[in-house]
């Protein structure tokens, strides 16, 4: 079997590694002494890094497509019978390949940053490239050494076991991991600019603006990744939920929370020149937490402390985390003080005051989730005892914090800077408050007495109404064209409002799908029926389908409303060749008003055990999440104003 592809993949990773080292050296040298480095060399180096990433990823995918079992990664995750689509996605189905994807994304971001560094005089930019080079050195280093997926097998197997069954079952495997990585890896860029600014001892608005733009891009991708991940687990795992407070999920949520705090406090620095040190802390913490999250999920330390040292990837990631944390915060401690903003907010009753409340809530939220996630690991490491921290703990902490955040979200964007008087707030919030309390009163009169639902309904309607009022008041003429022009001209603000609208939708979907959920477990003989959520369910038959890589057995459950057949749910069991355990796949019937979720508890020829769930407004969770991500992208979509100003300055200079 050909060894060309493994060799090419490894060469690509080595090229990336070499380019990263060179980029780190050149970048820092250029920052220290701009005259010593030519601009073209920086750029070429960044492109070499990207080329290395592309080459190793292409070799990996090529080897998977050509069933090249001489490559260790292919032997580990591939099987000849896997369909084309899942063959491609198995490029990131396991550790080695996912690190290759990481390096590719990182190299891509580096190339983008390099494009924006227009001359070596941009010392903030060249320093950031140096930091990207250091991070690239670490990850390309992982791929070429301890996590090398390109090892050539001395005795290649004839066929492999294939990827984890859960990773070759659903189309989402093609979208969720790349999206998540675009978010996770993207936080390297704000980190790089922050470190570069600290090295330069140059605070101010430049590093912040560039960190904020990059942070927004990464944050929007991570938002999308989180929502797609929740959706995927809802569609596939079959326990009827979308979020289990599992360490893997928390690892992605924690940096998201801190990055959200940064996006908000960055506004305060831009608008009021405050919180610069705090912004450094948030940016450094976000990046460090992405590394910690990767360590937690990739070293399997959360399963058991003892599996930590099975591969060298875990210790390497932990070491890098300590390095980032130690290095970053040492530099900050040395330089941060002198860059601290001098001005202080004057009163709590002001926009910056609400921003601070938001930051306090978000960072406490992140800290509590982090503590709950690593606590079992620490206890096991210290005492050897095994403890669990699960949903009851996280819910108890998360619910009040989230309610506080919703409240701040409803008030903050409409509070004036510096000093908000009661009179101004009453003028701005009177209509929203009336709308919100009407909605809450209407819910109560309609018979909904759950305090959580009524409170969330109140907060959500209030915040949406305040946004609409703001739009109506700000727009010069009540015409669609004028509204569109306003939304386009103030993208940061209205992007934020779009994201808030998405958060409102998400909050409503979460609370209604949990408070009004219906659950039942029924056992049906063939031909028998049961009632659930206003439908009659009949177990008609089972069917067995032989596919190339699996045997799929589905149960036909006919849902009737009266005598009318409204849906045939087909939950199934997939038995993959070479895997002992069959994997269940639920059948979800999504709708605007409710989802009906049918999962198999047990399946025999003549008898089936079904777990049934009805979730009102569930689909709105995904729609709301998409709105949040869209808001982030909208905020960053305008051209940076700097360019137009530079262009204007050039025009002036030429004239």
């Amino acid at each position, binding site marked *: 079997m050909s060894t060309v592809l493994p060799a090419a993949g490894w060469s690509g990773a080595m090229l990336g590694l070499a380019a990263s080292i060179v980029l780190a050296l050149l970048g820092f040298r250029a920052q220290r002494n701009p005259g010593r480095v030519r601009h073209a060399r920086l750029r070429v180096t960044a492109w070499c890094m990207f080329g290395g990433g592309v080459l190793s990823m292409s070799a990996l995918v090529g080897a998977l497509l050509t069933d090249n079992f001489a490559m260790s990664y292919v032997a580990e995750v591939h099987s000849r019978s896997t369909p084309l689509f899942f063959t491609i996605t198995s490029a990131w189905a396991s550790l080695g390949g996912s690190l290759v994807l990481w390096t590719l994304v990182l190299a891509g971001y580096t190339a983008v940053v390099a494009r924006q560094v227009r001359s070596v005089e941009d010392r903030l930019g060249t320093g950031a490239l140096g930091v990207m080079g250091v991070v690239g050195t670490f990850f390309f280093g992982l791929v070429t050494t301890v996590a090398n997926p390109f090892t050539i097998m001395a005795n290649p197997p004839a066929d492999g076991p294939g990827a984890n069954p859960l990773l070759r079952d659903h189309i989402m495997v093609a979208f969720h991991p790349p999206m998540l990585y675009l978010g996770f890896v993207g936080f390297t860029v704000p980190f790089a600019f922050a470190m570069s600014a600290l090295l330069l001892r140059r605070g101010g608005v430049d590093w912040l603006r560039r960190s904020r733009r990059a942070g927004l891009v990464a944050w929007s991708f991570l938002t999308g990744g989180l929502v797609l991940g929740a959706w995927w687990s809802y569609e596939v795992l079959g326990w009827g939920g979308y979020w*289990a407070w599992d360490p893997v999920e928390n690892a992605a949520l924690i940096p998201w929370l801190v990055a959200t705090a940064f996006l908000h406090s960055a506004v305060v620095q831009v608008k009021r020149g405050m919180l610069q040190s705090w912004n450094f802390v948030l940016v450094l913490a976000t990046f460090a937490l992405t590394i910690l999250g990767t360590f937690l999920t990739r070293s399997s330390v959360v399963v058991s402390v003892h599996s930590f040292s099975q591969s060298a990837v875990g210790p390497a990631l932990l070491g890098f985390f300590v390095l980032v944390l130690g290095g970053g915060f040492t530099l900050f401690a040395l330089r941060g003080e002198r860059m601290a903003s001098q001005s*202080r907010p004057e009163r709590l009753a002001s926009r910056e005051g609400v921003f601070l409340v938001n930051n306090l809530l978000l960072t406490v939220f992140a800290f509590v989730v982090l503590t709950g996630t690593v606590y079992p690991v620490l206890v096991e490491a210290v005492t050897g005892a095994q403890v669990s921290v699960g949903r*009851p703990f996280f819910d108890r902490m998360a619910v009040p914090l989230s309610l506080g955040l919703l409240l701040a979200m409803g008030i903050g964007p409409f509070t004036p800077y510096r000093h908000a008087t009661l009179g101004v707030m009453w003028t701005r919030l009177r209509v929203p408050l009336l709308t919100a309390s009407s909605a*809450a*009163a209407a819910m109560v009169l309609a018979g909904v007495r759950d305090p959580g639902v009524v409170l969330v309904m109140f907060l959500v309607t209030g915040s949406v109404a305040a946004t609409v009022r703001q739009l109506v008041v700000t727009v010069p003429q009540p015409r669609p064209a004028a509204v569109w022009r306003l939304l386009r001209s103030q993208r940061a603000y209205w992007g934020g409002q779009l994201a808030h609208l998405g958060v409102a939708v998400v909050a409503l979907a979460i609370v209604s799908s949990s408070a009004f959920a219906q659950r039942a477990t029924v056992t049906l003989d063939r031909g028998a029926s049961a009632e659930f959520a206003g439908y009659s369910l009949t177990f008609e038959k089972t069917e067995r389908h032989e596919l190339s890589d699996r045997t799929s057995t589905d149960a036909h459950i006919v849902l009737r409303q009266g005598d009318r057949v409204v849906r045939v749910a087909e939950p199934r069991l997939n038995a993959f060749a070479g895997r002992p355990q069959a994997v269940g796949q639920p059948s979800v019937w999504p709708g605007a008003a409710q989802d009906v979720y049918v999962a198999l508890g047990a399946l025999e020829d003549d008898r089936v055990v079904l777990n049934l769930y009805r979730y009102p407004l569930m689909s709105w969770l995904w729609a709301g999440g998409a709105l949040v991500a869209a808001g982030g992208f909208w905020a960053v979509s305008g051209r940076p*104003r700097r360019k137009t100003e530079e262009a204007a300055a050039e025009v002036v200079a030429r004239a």
Partner: protein
Amino acid sequence: MRRPSIRWGSGLLLVVLLAVAVIGVAVGGGRATDRAYELEQRLRCPVCKSVSIADSPSDTAQAMRQVVRDQIAAGRTDDQIIDHFRARYGGWVLLDPPMSGSTLALWIVSLVVVASGTTWFVLRWTRRPEPREPSTEDREMVAAALEEIRMRDPIEEQP
């Protein structure tokens, strides 16, 4: 300028609406509680590990759910049922970490963080910075800042 009657009117309406909502919730409040389901949510499934026995479709979880129901039917209290599972499976089975023993520190750390964050915040806002004469350094900084403002580009983001 709006007439005061409208302001008073909308204030009154707001109070009435809020009163309806609050009283409605207070009178009919609370979800119908399913004791078995609440207990099941606090117990970790030994097979799938990531979810509680309430959510897990595994046979083991089903058997454990049956035990929960049997014990409720036998009239045992929540604590007795939880202790029964802890004795059989160890502290690992409790998804809701108790405020004692090896999970006490978790609660202490979390609550201390919440408390210290809030304290820091409150102190920061109640402490008024005493006004002082600007030093030469301050004046230089102001001059530099003014210079920077003249040079810098306004960032996007508005009202």
